[in-house]
């Protein structure tokens, strides 16, 4: 699975897709694979303030609970209720399954994130 080149990535396996002042956040295909069958997703409410590097929700597979950490800071403008209702969609299409959309507090924060190529390299190294 290729990691979309337009996205930015974290070492904790989230992706960020920036369109103007809005960023969508999801978990990577690598993350969904290591979690296995995803059965439960807990997300913040619209209006919540996310802080870069801090937990904003949890995703649970049958066997594990994992926190999601926000790649950047911002205010939640939309929550994907489709994903909370049918969490298995994250397994089917992790890079299309956005969890939340936020208004970026400081777009420059995204410069610290990994490119698709760097993230791919990071994942390969982590598996050693």
């Amino acid at each position: 699975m290729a990691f979309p080149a337009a996205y930015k990535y974290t070492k904790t396996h989230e992706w960020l897709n920036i369109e103007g002042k809005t960023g969508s956040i999801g978990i990577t295909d690598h993350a969904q694979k290591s979690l296995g069958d995803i059965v439960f997703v807990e997300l913040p409410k619209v209006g919540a303030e996310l802080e870069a590097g801090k937990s904003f929700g949890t995703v649970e597979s049958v066997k594990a609970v994992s926190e999601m950490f926000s790649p950047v800071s911002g205010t939640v403008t939309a929550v994907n209720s489709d994903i909370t209702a049918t969490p298995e969609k994250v397994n089917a299409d992790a890079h299309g399954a956005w969890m939340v959309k936020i208004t970026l507090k400081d777009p420059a924060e995204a410069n610290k994130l990994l490119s698709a190529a760097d993230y791919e390299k990071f994942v390969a190294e982590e598996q050693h």
Partner: protein
Amino acid sequence: MSSSTEVATPRKTALNRIHREMGAKMVDFNGWDMPVEYPPFGARKSGGLVAEHLAVRNSVGIFDVSHMGDIRLHGPQALAAVQKMTMNDASHLEIGQAQYSALLYPAGTFVDDVIVHRLGERDYLLVINAGTREKDIAWVRQEAKGFDCAVEHLSDDFTQIAIQGPNGWRVLQKLTDADLTKVKFYWLTRGTVCGLPNTLIARTGYTAEDGFEIYVPTDQATSERVWMAVVAAGEEFGLLPCGLGARNTLRLEGALSLYGHEISGTITVLEAGLSRFLKLDKGDFTGRDALLKQQAEGIKRTLVGLENVDRGIPRDGYTVTDLGGASIGNVTSGSPGPFLKKNVALAYVPPKFAALGTEVAVEIRGTMVKCKVVPIPFYKRPKRST
């Protein structure tokens, strides 16, 4: 996303190479490098914990359970030794019959739970857990002292393969001359399996489903050959290789105890709700006195089944509270049940909270999630004619 790390140099079963070749995700389980699940890989179109779990409930799955241990007791006083060290009554076992039982400490708590197979006139096999192997063998040797009975540790002599699910017998029947329709649940037989004569075939398992466990030599070539033969024989039934993930959810739906969770060295048989396997009237045995005393005095905690009322997944170790928020116990095992399609948990609570329908809460990351007490097992397999 936070990720976990692996422990170094765990032990390997003879099927380790095959698990890796089949694309299994491996984990350290009680010091063993074991498959947790087999995602879709190569020509295999489905996989993963949920698919594996459903394959076993609906058709058939294969598990490597070679990490389980085996202790043989044989000799003139083998039965007397088994009777002294286990809680069930082995005197009723016919040759070829098996029973669920446990090795107990004098306090009536668990050294381990075991399956006792009667192999012959004065010949018994205890199948024990992986994580308790060394402790169990030492305990059994000590308990057998004074009896005219040999104790043999055979854990490393068998590759143990479980073929589980309603079509399990059909798959195995293709590979053996033994008539499996004649073998009842919790009975065993011997037969030629994949050309291996005198192979031990037991109709047992840990999935709350019908199924078989076969015991074959541990050399890698033989173990791999048998595994691949079962996989090939199961193809027409949609057999899936299954990992420890599905093994755990299958046993949890069936409310089967797991050592270190529902049972342990600090939990008694009465608390664990396993009295139906406890035969206090069979004569003296280790743990009996303490259990008689506890039976008279009453227990302070008991195992119950919980189902969610509110959203959330109760998991192993979470705190159980009353509706006022006071801690009353803990979840021993909790998970989504893939076949039941609901979240189920086993928990210890004081008896006054054990009545069916009682509402309690489970603390999930700081939030009180309301649950109610439901009957266990959560899942019971339908009766079948084979």
